[in-house]
């Protein structure tokens, strides 16, 4: 432990004026260091950029949620009576596009990752702060294109843009495609920034195997972002080109092969589902240890399983094509590989469970979300096994079984992790505590509403109700009503955090630096952190999650 002179804030010539001196440590933090719209829109502070993202993706979530509400209302009755079928098709398309590309993919990485990664590794900022800001602008430009597509009439291709329908559809496919193309680059830039940061900016003593698991998860996620996203970008660009320039690459009338599109699309979009779940798994790894004040069980295995998921995730895209006309032999291989991805996921689930064993478990909101995540992810993941089983997928492909599968993982899993993380780090981000009682109520509401919404959809799917159906056969109604009822409960569950988080920013109890008694560099700095994150350069001398134990058990 060595103490140098009080740090002098650094500055670049021509850069923004230096932040106030650090003597007023308890007062100056990244939130109050400067004011005004410009200080936010031109900031290069990763913490502020994280908040910019938080605001944007929350809006996008509300928008996607509104579409979901409209979908569920329409599906209350079997006849397509609430909206026209054109409208319905636009609703689920926009719901999928907004939720996937504009909410879930950026959610944890761009908000929590952006905020926490530099702090967790003891750095002042990401490696490329201006690139970080640029990626937010790129995201906003992409969102603007997509919103334009929406306002000027919508898109109706489904979020998958399958050709040749997306070539002949007379809706605003090009605008939406450009929107996704552009946002893709935001995700690439974020991933690139994370990789370089994690390699190059770690504090002294912070070796790879001392990194928090959240950072490992983001490292794996970033690999997928950098290596997968460009493929969907160019694919979607080709679709736009087919529409504008009449190239014939995917159009069978011109000799193109629509199945090639599906290969290209899923080459990215399957790994993309791991972009959506890995960060959430990272959050859960942090939460289980912090909430049980106990070393994580199997640190190395969890870290490596993130990488394994990222790698194996690139090998399985063909499992979306079992009935598409892909060769049955290719289907067989893709099926086998899909089963293999289940193993690292299983490892994580079991290790989290084992971590709770003999812990000192605080039954607070973050833990409730953790428990919810583990349960719902398990169900979602295990139904993924059903889908990866070729002979069974032939029946349930493109039915509500698939819808239920991925909502279990993305809504039940990923969003639970996101909300859990948001609650856990909220004191750090805002310096205020959220109201614990309301938070527990909302966690319970989300859990109940969620299961009521999506469990019946498994049954519907096995009964054979196809997805993307505006009107459906009468016998499916009861289950659909259950699902819609659940969705309204779920909606309330999501509305609550939006309200009390907003409330707490002003009225919440002031948060101490480490309200959870948790380990990790982020808890060593102020809440909210000072602009340069740490007053002094931290040195790391111990493993991650080194809670002082009663005894060390080596099994």
């Amino acid at each position, binding site marked *: *432990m060595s*103490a*140098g*002179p009080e*740090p*002098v*804030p*650094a*500055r*670049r*010539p021509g850069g923004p004026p230096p932040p106030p001196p650090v003597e007023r440590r308890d007062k100056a933090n990244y939130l109050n260091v400067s004011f005004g719209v410009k200080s936010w829109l031109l900031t290069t502070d990763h913490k502020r950029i994280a908040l910019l993202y938080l605001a944007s993706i929350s809006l996008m979530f509300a928008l996607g949620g509104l579409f979901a509400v409209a979908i569920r209302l329409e599906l209350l009755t079997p006849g397509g009576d609430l909206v026209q079928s054109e409208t319905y098709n636009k609703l689920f398309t926009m719901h999928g596009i907004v939720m996937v590309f504009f909410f879930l993919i950026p959610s944890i990485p761009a908000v929590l990752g952006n905020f926490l990664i530099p702090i967790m590794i003891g*750095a*002042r*900022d*990401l*490696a*490329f*702060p201006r*690139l970080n800001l640029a990626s937010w602008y790129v995201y906003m430009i992409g969102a603007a294109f997509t919103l334009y597509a929406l306002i000027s009439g919508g898109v109706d291709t489904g979020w998958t843009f399958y050709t040749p329908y997306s070539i002949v559809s007379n809706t605003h496919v090009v605008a939406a495609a450009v929107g996704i193309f552009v946002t893709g680059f935001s995700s*690439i830039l974020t991933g*690139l920034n994370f*990789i*370089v940061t994690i*390699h*190059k*900016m770690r504090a002294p003593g912070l070796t790879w195997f001392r990194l928090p698991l959240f950072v490992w998860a983001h490292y794996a996620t970033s690999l997928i972002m*950098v*290596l*997968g*996203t*460009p*493929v969907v*970008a*160019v*694919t979607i660009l*080709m679709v736009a*080109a087919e529409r504008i*320039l*009449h*190239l*014939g*690459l995917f159009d069978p009338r*011109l*000799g*193109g*092969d629509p199945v*090639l599109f599906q*290969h*290209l699309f899923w080459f990215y979009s399957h790994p993309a589902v791991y972009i959506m779940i890995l960060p959430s798994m990272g959050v859960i790894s942090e939460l289980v240890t912090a909430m049980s004040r106990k070393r994580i069980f199997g640190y190395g295995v969890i870290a490596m399983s993130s990488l394994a998921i990222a790698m194996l995730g690139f090998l399985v895209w063909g499992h979306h094509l079992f009935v598409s006309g892909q060769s049955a032999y290719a289907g067989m291989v893709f099926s086998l590989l899909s089963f293999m991805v289940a193993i690292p996921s299983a490892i994580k689930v079991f290790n989290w469970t084992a971590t709770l064993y003999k812990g000192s478990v605080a039954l607070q909101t973050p833990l409730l979300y953790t428990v919810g995540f583990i349960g719902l992810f398990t169900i979602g993941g295990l139904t993924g096994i059903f889908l990866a089983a070729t002979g069974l997928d032939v029946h349930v492909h493109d039915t509500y079984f698939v819808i239920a599968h991925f909502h279990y993982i993305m809504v039940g899993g990923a969003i639970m992790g996101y909300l859990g993380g948001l609650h856990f780090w909220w004191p750090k981000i805002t310096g205020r505590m959220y109201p614990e009682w309301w938070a527990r109520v909302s966690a319970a509401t989300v859990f109940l509403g969620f299961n009521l919404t999506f469990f019946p959809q498994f049954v519907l799917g096995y009964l054979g109700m196809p997805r993307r159906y505006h009107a459906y056969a009468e016998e499916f109604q009861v289950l659909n009503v259950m699902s819609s009822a659940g969705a309204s409960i779920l909606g309330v569950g999501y509305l609550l955090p939006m309200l009390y988080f907003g409330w707490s920013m002003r009225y919440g109890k002031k948060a101490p630096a480490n309200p959870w008694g948790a380990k990790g*560099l982020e808890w*060593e700095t102020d809440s909210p952190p000072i602009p*340069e994150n*740490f*007053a*002094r*350069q*931290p*040195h790391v*001398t*111990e493993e991650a999650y080194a809670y002082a134990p009663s005894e060390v058990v080596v099994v």
Partner: protein
Amino acid sequence: MSETALPAHDAAHHPRLAHHFTDLTSQKDASSLGMWLFLAQEIMFFGGLFLAYTVYRALYSPGFAEASHHLDWKLGAFNTVVLIGSSLTMAMGVHAAALGHNRTTAGYLLATIALGGVFLGVKVVEYGDKFRHHLVPGAHFQWDGLHTRAAEIFYSLYFAMTGLHALHMVIGIPILAWMAWMAWRGRFSREYHTPVEMTGLYWHFVDIVWIFLFPLLYLIA
């Protein structure tokens, strides 16, 4: 956990050192890794088109051969030489920058721009020729050979791949011009010339893409 003071950026530190790095070397390492990751991303971006090319070439090989004969391989070869030349001048530019010779750097960068311009000029001539001969896919596509559909797919790929490649050059040239301007103004030094290097990496990458495009498009037997 222990800590030390944040590195004090005293007056002696290099003006180009950003606040969150401790020294120029690590800053440069970060840039160079970042650039390489960006190029890995670019490989995948072009990769989608190369995949489409592979699939259709396998499906329609006679048609592709027929269609390829309507491309002028001499122009293609000429452009290959031009682009390789520009890669050389680019490498020399980086070399000069590393030695701190700002004016020389600017000169090499201008030469690179000029060669890039020649390349694009030839491309314009070629594209114009395709327009005149109705080889642009779409409603006006005409083909008097056997394999009309395969030829149209071939030309779809031709325009998509060379177009995207040319777009990368069109983006690269202003960046080169900017670098040349900065070099001319003496902004680089032995210690700090990362932007020139990064631009160089980008330009060489564009060259590599063309190295593959040339035989794949112009020289199908």
